[in-house]
């Protein structure tokens, strides 16, 4: 596609529910990133994929957070047993290949998650 596409744009869930957030990267981009952005702050790194391999998940805040990219394209971020502190904007970014070239990450519009 022309840009990084994320869905849904907005998600409201009750505390304790599971949610799944989807990211469609730019076609052909090997590298994919997830960030969490709290209100009034800069994005914080969550996890990073190179094709289908999850190479860095050091930013995931707890074992309730799980990300996958099974075919090396679309990625899903899943949050189990959501808590109020999970409320944030979840941003996805993709880049051609951060290992072989220094090119910028391109971001989607994010999913705004609100936990009631």
């Amino acid at each position, binding site marked *: 596609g022309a840009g*990084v596409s*994320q869905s849904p744009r907005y998600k409201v869930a009750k505390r304790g529910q599971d949610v799944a957030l989807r990211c469609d990267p730019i076609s052909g981009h090997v*590298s994919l*990133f997830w*960030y969490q952005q709290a209100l*009034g*702050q*800069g*994005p*914080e*790194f969550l996890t*990073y994929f190179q094709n289908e391999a999850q*190479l*860095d998940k050091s*930013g995931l805040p707890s074992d309730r957070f799980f990300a996958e990219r099974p075919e090396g394209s679309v990625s899903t971020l899943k949050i189990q047993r959501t808590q109020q502190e999970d409320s944030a904007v979840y*941003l996805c*970014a993709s880049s051609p290949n*951060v*290992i072989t070239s*220094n*090119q*910028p*990450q*391109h*971001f*989607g*519009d*994010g999913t*705004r998650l609100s936990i009631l």
Partner: protein
Amino acid sequence: SQELEQSPQSLIVQEGKNLTINCTSSKTLYGLYWYKQKYGEGLIFLMMLQKGGEEKSHEKITAKLDEKKQQSSLHITASQPSHAGIYLCGADTRAAGNKLTFGGGTRVLVKP
């Protein structure tokens, strides 16, 4: 992020005036990226700097990376209402760059 500090946190300028935003790192920057974000939207890539002393310009926006590669500035000349938004600096702080560490952002308001 405590690794990357942006200043000022917010800025109100009169249309037509210049403005400067600073981004300072406690670590060597292997790549410095400037993004702009409007409320409720994603980050729009502006410029990327990698070499010490590098300077890039696009339209009325100029970004610089100092020789020591620990500080960058973003300068907007003759600001317009379209320049309003949140400006974020993001940095690779490792040689094998992948994840970005972001500053807290600078909120810019341009008064007509």
